């Protein structure tokens, strides 16, 4: 139990920023550049850690609560989700709802912190963030319902447990493929990647997540960056476990397989970012509604 917890936290805290590095490297490779080093996120974090703060005179203590909750939530959520075949350290009946709602909490405070600056651009970002997440939330629930139906349990460990291997081989394989696609879309949205949001653009009008954190600086911004990396790893873990349901029985190989899966996921995100353009904002709800409908369809397939 304790060893499991330590291993879990070790993997999470150490490897999460690497994912961002892999994505940037892939994009650079597609563009024919050398690109920033793989470990660039670590350097960034280190540098931000040592910097001072710059605060707008409009802001209050809510402004600082955004980064705090944004870091605490993925950290806690990670404890409830299995990393590949390594079971989650914290697991109980119904933890899946807590998992979903924890991210709601972080969204609440990130958006509130954005509104705290009084800037209209950050208001825009906050409005977009809450709008789009509203539409993604039912999708996530449908995905969880499919998994709960297949596994017969209500905890993340059972949902992403041994039944997956058998389910893939049974008739439910089609549903699993569909929810894999849906989850990937949700991941792209929640981690603010193309085609929903552009993490590298410097035009404030078009951004979602980046524009919300525009006024943060120093260690607070470092916390946001780290929190975003952790969040990507946690949501990615859901996807990777679904796609690679094998258990080798030894913790080392299991963690290696998990990390390899995550790296493939990061490369995939990088490929999509290089190959696709950002969606026009009015199109985003359409895509999300479409994804929800796909997930409903997946649920209907397993219910019949």
């Amino acid at each position, binding site marked *: 139990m304790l060893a499991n917890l330590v291993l879990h936290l070790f993997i999470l805290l150490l490897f999460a920023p690497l994912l961002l590095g892999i994505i940037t490297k892939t994009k650079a490779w597609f563009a024919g550049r050398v690109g920033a080093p793989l470990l660039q996120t670590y350097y960034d974090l280190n540098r931000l850690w040592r910097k001072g703060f710059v605060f707008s005179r409009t802001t209050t203590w809510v402004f600082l609560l955004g980064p705090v909750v944004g870091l605490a939530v993925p950290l806690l959520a990670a404890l409830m989700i299995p990393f590949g075949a390594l079971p989650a350290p914290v697991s109980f009946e119904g933890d899946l709802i807590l998992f979903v709602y924890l991210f709601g909490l972080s969204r609440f405070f990130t958006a509130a912190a954005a509104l705290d600056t009084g800037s209209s651009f950050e208001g825009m970002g906050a409005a977009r963030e809450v709008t789009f997440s509203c539409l993604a939330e039912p999708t996530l629930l449908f995905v969880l319902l499919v998994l709960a139906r297949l596994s017969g349990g209500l905890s993340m460990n059972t949902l992403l447990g041994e039944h997956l291997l058998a389910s893939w081989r049974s008739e439910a394989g*089609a549903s699993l493929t569909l929810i894999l696609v849906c989850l990937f879309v949700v991941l792209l949205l929640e981690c603010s990647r193309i085609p929903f949001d552009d993490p590298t653009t410097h035009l404030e009008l078009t951004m979602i997540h980046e524009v919300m954190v525009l006024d943060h600086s120093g260690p607070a911004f470092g916390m946001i960056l780290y929190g975003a990396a952790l969040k990507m790893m946690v949501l990615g873990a859901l996807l990777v476990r679904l796609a690679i349901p094998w258990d080798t029985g030894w913790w080392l190989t299991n963690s290696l397989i998990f990390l390899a899966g995550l790296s493939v996921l990061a490369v995939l995100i990088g490929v999509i970012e290089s190959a696709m353009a950002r969606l026009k904002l009015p199109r985003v*709800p*359409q895509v999300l509604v*479409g994804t929800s*409908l*796909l997930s*409903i369809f997946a649920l*209907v397939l397993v219910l019949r």
Partner: protein
Amino acid sequence: MEITNPLLLTVILINFFTLGSARLGACIRIVALQGALLALLPLAVHGFSLHSLVLFSGALLFKGVFIPLLLLRAIREVRIRREVEPVIGFVPTLILGVLMTAGAFLFADFLPLAVEHLDSLFVPTALATMFSGFLLLITRRKAITQVLGYLMLENGIFIFGVLLSEALPLMVEGGVLLDLLVGVFVMGIVMNQINREFSSINTESLTALKE
């Protein structure tokens, strides 16, 4: 049976895509893909016999290659890329499509089917594809999308046909292919005429002819 379920699921997903997308070129290509996938169906169900090979090649040629090429040429000539203003918006159409698909799944459970078809996806997929075709025909204004709707309707009937092709040899497939061909030619001609007369292919302009 192993391969048919993924095939049919892809067919349903293509229905959704066509209902939700505004780009005509993409729609035509994806419906062509649907036709090509459906061409595989007789092989997957009845094995490699002369009969199913004929069906396969015929369907692939018409549904997958010939008609899509015609349609692509048509949109190149009249230079339209998008379905601009559907009668009902894209998201509502998509929601209707999913509701209809779910309805098809429920409805198929109540049909008095032969035992071997009870659990398969054939009947619901056929129904869902037909419904989606109807939906396209009803909600879209461009003649091209309407042809696509018609094509999709035919695809739905084709799935039924594959089920029945052993009981009614050549009857079904002959009917399907002929029907299709005639339909597309008629549409093509009508479309050209409309385009020449009104310099647009909005079918709403047709209402001007009512007197």
